[in-house]
């Protein structure tokens, strides 16, 4: 009986997840916001991959997920801070079941909580597509903060996994940190060639940083303009 109940719950969450992305997220991203592409699209076509993006807004995850085909939806797991997204029951349910985050505990390498890198590695072993924001938090809108080293550690652990760098611009204007009002702006998106740790070894972090700089420079539209 119990397993039946669990299965029904699981199935209904899956249905809700699909509905959420088809009915709400996709129209929001494609019609209300609208994307401008600054390079050919380069995103994973199958599991066991990492999408690495800069982080300005909660919408970053939505845009990235809605750009990948629906058949991959069940494999996509945005890596997110457990403390932020498991604050209360409803947020927790929404983050885990609808967005499908992989919760990791920040700044705790005490051995009690699971090592974040291990968690990511395990998910990749299961054929997941991780969305990883190497800057950590969303930070100041539209200002790229220093990339943190975590992504290199993860890449080192899984040297053969393809990593897809993506640069997003403008979503921090649409919905910045701490603001719930959504104001439509066209947003810009640029991609780089996928890379892996195997390919660059010790230079990996530098190459990744360089590709982000190059993507950043390819976008000519203003941030706010008047500060």
């Amino acid at each position, binding site marked *: 009986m119990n397993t039946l109940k669990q299965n029904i719950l699981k199935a209904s969450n899956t249905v809700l997840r699909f509905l959420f992305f088809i009915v709400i997220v996709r129209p929001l991203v494609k019609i209300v916001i609208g994307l401008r*592409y600054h390079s050919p699209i380069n995103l994973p076509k199958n599991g066991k991959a990492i999408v690495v993006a800069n982080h300005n807004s909660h919408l970053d995850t939505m845009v990235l997920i809605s750009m990948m085909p629906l058949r991959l939806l069940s494999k996509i797991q945005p890596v997110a801070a457990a403390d932020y997204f498991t604050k209360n029951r409803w947020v927790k349910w929404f983050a885990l079941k609808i967005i499908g985050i992989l919760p990791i505990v920040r700044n705790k390498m005490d051995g009690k909580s699971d090592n974040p890198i291990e968690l990511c590695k395990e998910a990749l072993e299961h054929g997941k597509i991780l969305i990883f924001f190497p800057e950590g938090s969303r930070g100041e809108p539209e200002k790229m903060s220093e990339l943190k080293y975590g992504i290199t550690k993860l890449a080192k652990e899984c040297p053969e996994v393809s990593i897809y760098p993506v640069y997003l611009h*403008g979503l921090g204007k649409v919905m910045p940190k701490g603001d719930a*009002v959504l*104001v439509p*702006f*066209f947003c810009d998106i640029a991609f780089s060639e996928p890379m892996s740790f195997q390919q660059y070894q010790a230079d990996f972090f530098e190459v990744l940083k360089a590709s982000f700089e190059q993507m950043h420079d390819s976008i000519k539209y203003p941030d706010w303009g*008047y500060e």
Partner: protein
Amino acid sequence: MIFDFATMLPVFKVFFALVVFLSLATVTCFFINKRKAVTADGGSMKNELQLRINSWWVMIGVFGLSLLFGPITTIYLFAILSFVALKEYFSMTPTRKADRQVLFWAYLIIPLQYYWVAIGWYGMFIIFIPIYAFLFMPFRMVLAGETKNYLKAASNIHWGLMLTVFTLSHLAFLVVLPLQGAEVELTNGLRVSSEGAALLLYLVVLTQLNDVSQFISGKLFGHTPITPTVSPNKTRGGLIGGLIFTGLLGALLANSLTPMVWWQGMLVGFGISLAGFIGDISMSAIKRDAGIKDTGQLLPGHGGILDRLDSLTFTAPLFFHLMHYYFY
């Protein structure tokens, strides 16, 4: 469809001509590509032309269907175009973070403005953005409290509303213009006059073909740029070619689509040609100021919506007020 088929006939005829014209362009483009593929690299140029023509098909299709389905559909179409245009405008010009909520209000102006159009309330339609939005937006900005760059930001927002909502809503009002005072309920499914659809078609066809003819005659006879610092491609030859072509086309279509006689149509054609030219270079100046080439990517081969509607933002109010003053 709430139009009478018989009264829609002139509109159908013009659309038929457009489809023939575009089919010819498609076939020509196809053969040019084929030839280029044999000789060597046609490169991006041929793709650009192909993309442009494909986008024209989409635009003609959407516009034609909206006219066919009646005034309310046309009003919805232009409301959506205004939304996209305003979004393009705010996405390429400088704004302030403090004005995020103000910009949100600016978007809310769109449904209101088009509501006035839908109920045919001319008095409100004509002053809503120039007066009420002009008074309200600064009020909301002051509440936000940021004074740095206040005037620049306020001007920019109002310019955007005028350019993308106020002027474009004139296109929608053309559809209901002939019904003014005729006591026709637009929404209750009565068969309504197709005069408005014909007027709108006249303006759009003249403006867009003026762009095309200016471009072509500029390529053929253009030497002296008129505004070298704004848009070096706009030449005296192009302007004159556009004037002649649009004047003739205006005269040719005047009788079947508008209440004008041929010489009035020719004068209006000249006016549309000039206004379209000014709208075009005005948008070029905005883009140059912002340091970008296109306003967006929605219309492959053309750029953004504003790249296509730039001339209409200037021709629409001009044509609308000529019609309103002399005929309706």
